[in-house]
């Protein structure tokens, strides 16, 4: 395995690290998108550990910073954020293709990275699969039942609520919160159906760290309906883990899941072979 650093893109404005397997393979490439504003190494270096593990399995990878994130600058174009993300990923595919020979890619994204992967996967013909970590999800009736019913019979919680109302001493955060409005549920559901119709393989891995809107494996079906039961879809809910996999054991289990999903859906002909 070897890693190379690149400045690349239509304005030569992005920075990325390509990881290439020791032996030439016919494997799909894996492109790793930024998680929020964390630069390309990912939360707690998750993206470095992921790409190196996949390189050892025979997959070429590219972890890079989207325009204006991490070490990448602006492209200088007048584009919507969606247009820019699609153009950035297209540049990334071109780079990885040039370095490794791969013509098809799987996208990986956590949180806003999953949303960006979704955006690109909707239209980019080179994308054959996507791994969504804590991507789109919606509070469902089932979510509310699972969330509120246990609380209804929790005397301690009632006591704390009443005590707080009598003495609301705990200051609430006054810091500004910036977030991206999620796409409507029906749009996302239709997008997934369209991706599957095009033959994409989709992997959804959600964590207990988003328990404010997702709290059970059943919620995949509740959110997205029958599309989630189609053959190209894999789902996993890791209740004990947090949103960014801060514990090394959780992170290793996540990487195991991703490696297995990739090897099942995009096997490498000579996986792990030495030069």
């Amino acid at each position, binding site marked *: 395995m070897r*890693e*190379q*650093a*690149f*400045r690349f893109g239509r304005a*030569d*404005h992005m*920075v990325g*690290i390509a990881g290439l397997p020791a032996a030439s393979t016919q494997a799909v490439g894996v492109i790793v998108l930024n998680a929020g*504003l*964390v*630069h*390309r*190494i990912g*939360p*707690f*270096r998750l993206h*470095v*550990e992921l790409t190196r593990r996949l390189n050892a399995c025979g997959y070429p990878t590219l972890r890079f910073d989207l325009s204006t994130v*991490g*070490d990448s*600058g602006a492209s200088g174009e007048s584009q919507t954020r969606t247009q820019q993300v699609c153009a950035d990923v297209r540049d990334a595919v071109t780079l990885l293709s040039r370095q490794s020979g791969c013509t098809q890619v799987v996208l990986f994204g956590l949180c806003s990275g999953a949303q960006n992967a979704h955006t690109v996967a909707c239209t980019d013909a080179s994308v054959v699969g996507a791994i969504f970590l804590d991507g789109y999800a919606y509070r469902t009736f089932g979510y509310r039942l699972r969330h509120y019913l246990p609380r209804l019979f929790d005397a301690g919680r009632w006591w704390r609520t009443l005590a707080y109302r009598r003495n609301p001493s705990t200051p609430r955060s006054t810091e500004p919160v910036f977030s991206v409005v999620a796409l409507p549920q029906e749009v996302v559901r239709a997008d997934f159906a369209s991706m599957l119709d095009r033959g994409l393989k989709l992997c959804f891995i959600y964590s*207990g*760290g988003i*328990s404010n809107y997702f709290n059970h494996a059943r919620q995949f079906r509740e959110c997205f309906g029958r599309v989630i039961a189609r053959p190209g879809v894999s789902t996993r809910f890791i*209740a*004990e883990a*947090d*949103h*960014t996999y*801060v*514990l*090394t*054991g*959780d992170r290793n289990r996540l990487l195991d899941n991703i490696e297995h999903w990739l090897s099942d859906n995009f096997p490498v002909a000579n996986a792990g072979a030495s030069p």
Partner: protein
Amino acid sequence: MTMLATPLEAELPLYFGAGGELFGLYQSAGTPARKAVLLCPPLGQEQIRCHRLYRQLAHALAAEGIPVLRFDYYGCGDSAGASAQVDWQRCLADARDAADELRQRSKTDRVIAFGARLGGSIALTAAAAARFSELVVWDPVLDGNAYVARLDAMQNALRRDPQRFCKPRLASDAADQWLGFAISKSLRQQLVELRCEPTTVPTWVMDSLAPTTTREWQSLGIDASRVNVLQPPTPWDDLGRLELAILSHALIQAVTAQLREVA
């Protein structure tokens, strides 16, 4: 802010050092330089939190005509090695190699080091071997034992944080790690034994520690005139901000002004 006559050259991402194991980003100043600055990063999550600030600082210094090299130690960032392989002595050697790389690229022998937290401690400890001409350190860790105790306490609090986990995690789940990064027993011991000694290299301290924190700058032989107190204090140890970037316009201004004045 300095107005630029010409746009800065883009930073060059590169691998350097023995075996090309170290990742760096070199920012040329575009003109012949009399001094260059090496930005020594902190370790662990503090490195990720400071990434944006280091980039902003590199650009600000380059705008002053000073070439800059940012880099990752072995086992950190984009450099080779696993997180559990981070080693204190290797960090010191990497800082020395990075200084040599910067000398070669900038064509100036005079390298000033900047470092935040453990990056400051590394700059202080490696000063002689890396032939740093001056140092600017930001809240450097001088007492490794106290720092280790604080990281242990934060790690213990993290596994029980209801904002992060649905259920508290076992102590064994969180063992041998600090705030998202695996650590070796040898690194723990090296940090326990860390005690920064006075250096003969001219040093300035950027102090943004909380008011209640004990200062030990005098133990470095640094008098008050070389300590620049910044406001507001930097929330290094706030678990609720563990994944929020540390940004400080005041720090960038102060460091840039200091290095501009260094003859």
